């Protein structure tokens, strides 16, 4: 016989006694005798495998039995045994969803999600987790469209979307949230209509704003998973850092031409985007989809991979794409996978982070706002569409060099221009007369600015960049030509 001291929360199971006598030669035998006499204790002291729960501490006098002989620790009649709770808790790792307080499904929802419910890996509980979950899509564009649609169809409880753009004809080739009648509408209004029609059970929250360092934490806070569907580096780093700072998983995807990438960043032990790319590429080195193009179905594949990862994180099945970087090549129709490791020196998720709050991401990525450029230089090196038209009408002798790709040149061009794609300029510039005044031009003015810099560096003195590219030319001078 030895005395066992019972902690407050277990006393209802021992007829309110704070000490109970039990028989046995070891701690294990004593506890077995205790739970025989007071069977209600069993579920709280032992797990389903019959092992003492990890947060149940048993002391013989003042010694933890873990440091003695565990349950084989011998006891004498004079010993006092204490059961002492470790009280532990915390937020959900991965996704903050309380299994203990999930919303119920309506009969309509049970019917709607029946193909989920009959899979043992999903079932009612996982569907309830989806219903309780909140996912925030950054962008209602190429990636955001399929991701938002599948998440809505799957029954995510709340779907937030951040975007501030309007629907353009050039979006429709891939941004399937929007249809032809939506051109000119706000993307959010169009998205909301489409998603509400798809599944009225899903609460669609829209945020018509640019994502900034000032609003990101506030916007992300109520959400469980962030789905990064952005198309530029400053926002990508912003989304990454905000996710790491808030401890929220980031279902990441990006697309360019025929290639897509996907991963899950920002989880507790997993790497983040900065572990992979500590620094952004120099501005202009990596062209955007507007400059380089993208195969319309590609965001369909990558956005749906992101939605799949979000759903897996929420319901807790399978192997998430944490620490793995998936690369998809649509031309070869191949998936490759790179291993990613968490970088202990990572400035945001490493052991001694230097980025502890959101920073100026435009500046970090070297994207200087146009207003910050010295105006005098602009005037000397740029020409507007209207000025160009006036000078051409006046009969000025100007050589117009179009530095786009041949397929772009096929769509529209300024009469009399010659085509030298940017990549060919270094080997073909001597086709140009150094004494002649040259106007370089591309789609929007970015690539031609690089060509102008190059030409000046090799001694061409009179080089002007067409501000706003051919798009501005079509807007202001020649509206008969198609835009892309």
């Amino acid at each position, binding site marked *: 016989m030895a005395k066992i001291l019972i*902690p*407050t*929360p*277990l*006393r*209802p*199971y021992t007829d309110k006694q704070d000490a109970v006598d039990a028989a046995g030669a070891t701690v294990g035998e004593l506890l077995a005798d205790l739970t025989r006499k007071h069977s*209600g204790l069993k*579920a*709280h002291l032992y797990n389903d495998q019959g092992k003492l729960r990890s*947060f149940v*501490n048993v*002391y013989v006098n003042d010694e*933890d039995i873990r440091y003695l002989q565990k349950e084989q620790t011998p006891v004498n009649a004079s010993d006092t045994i*204490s059961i*002492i*709770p*470790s*009280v*532990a*808790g*915390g*937020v*959900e*790792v991965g996704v*903050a*969803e*309380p*299994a*203990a*307080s999930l919303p119920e499904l309506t009969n309509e929802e049970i019917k709607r999600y029946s193909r989920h419910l009959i899979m043992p890996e999903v079932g009612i509980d996982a569907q309830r987790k989806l219903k309780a979950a909140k996912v925030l899509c950054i962008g209602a564009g190429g990636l955001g469209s399929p991701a938002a649609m599948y998440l809505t169809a799957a029954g995510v409880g709340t779907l937030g979307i951040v975007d501030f753009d309007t629907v353009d004809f050039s979006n429709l080739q891939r941004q399937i949230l929007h249809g032809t009648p939506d051109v000119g509408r706000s993307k959010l209004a169009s998205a909301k209509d489409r998603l509400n029609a798809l599944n009225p059970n899903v609460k669609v929250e829209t945020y018509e704003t640019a994502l900034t360092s000032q609003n990101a*934490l*506030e916007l992300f*806070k*109520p959400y469980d998973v962030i789905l990064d569907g952005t198309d530029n580096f400053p926002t990508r780093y912003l989304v990454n850092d905000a996710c790491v700072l*808030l*401890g929220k998983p980031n279902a990441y995807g990006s697309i360019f031409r025929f290639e897509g990438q996907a991963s899950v960043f920002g989880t*507790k032990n997993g790497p983040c985007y900065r572990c992979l790319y500590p620094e952004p590429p120099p501005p202009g080195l990596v062209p955007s989809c507007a400059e380089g193009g993208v195969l319309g179905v590609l965001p369909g594949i990558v956005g749906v991979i992101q939605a799949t990862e979000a759903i897996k994180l929420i319901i807790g099945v399978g192997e998430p794409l944490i620490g793995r970087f998936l690369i998809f090549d649509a031309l070869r129709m191949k998936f490759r996978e790179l291993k990613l490791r968490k970088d202990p020196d990572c400035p945001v998720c490493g052991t001694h982070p230097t980025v502890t709050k959101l920073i100026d991401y435009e500046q970090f990525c070297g994207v200087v706002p146009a207003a910050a450029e010295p105006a005098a230089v602009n005037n000397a090196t740029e020409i507007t569409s209207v000025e160009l038209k006036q000078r051409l009408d006046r009969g000025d002798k100007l050589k117009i060099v179009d530095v786009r790709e041949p397929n772009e040149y096929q769509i529209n061009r300024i009469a009399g221009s010659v085509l030298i794609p940017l990549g060919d300029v270094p080997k073909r510039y001597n086709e140009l007369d150094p004494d002649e005044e040259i106007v370089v031009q591309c789609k929007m003015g970015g690539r031609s600015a690089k060509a102008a810099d190059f030409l000046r560096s090799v001694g061409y003195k009179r080089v002007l960049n067409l501000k706003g590219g051919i798009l501005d030319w079509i807007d202001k001078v020649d509206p008969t030509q198609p835009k892309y």
Partner: protein
Amino acid sequence: MSSLTISAGVDAAIRAHGRETYPHECCGALVGRNGIVTDVLALPNTTEEGPRRRFLVRPSDYREAERRASELGAELAGFYHSHPDHPARPSQYDLDHAWPTFAYIIVSVAAGTDEDMTVWFLKDDRSSFEEGSLHHGENSHPDTAQAVHG
């Protein structure tokens, strides 16, 4: 539905503790009697799994909390903890580590500001938590926050 009554001082002390330790979780003991919490004891968070997402009250502090409760002529009524940047709802982890009869108060602290406060009780079969109703009573002890480990 189980209910719990807390004084204004208890409410303020829990919220202040949550703000103070943000972005880490705070934890402490609730002391009282018959569903009324009159005192709180702030306890150190001794988790080794990252205090942003976890809290752990070690056995020695638990013993101390029970001792203080009986000194005050009351009982240990439960524990409180904060959920930094997460809702004031119990996680699966909370459920896995919960003790019966205890009241579990959770305060959500979002970006350093205290928000929702809820109370939860473990169901007898350990299957889930049941949300209790949290009432505010008279403030009998204005000076309620006491650190066990200063």
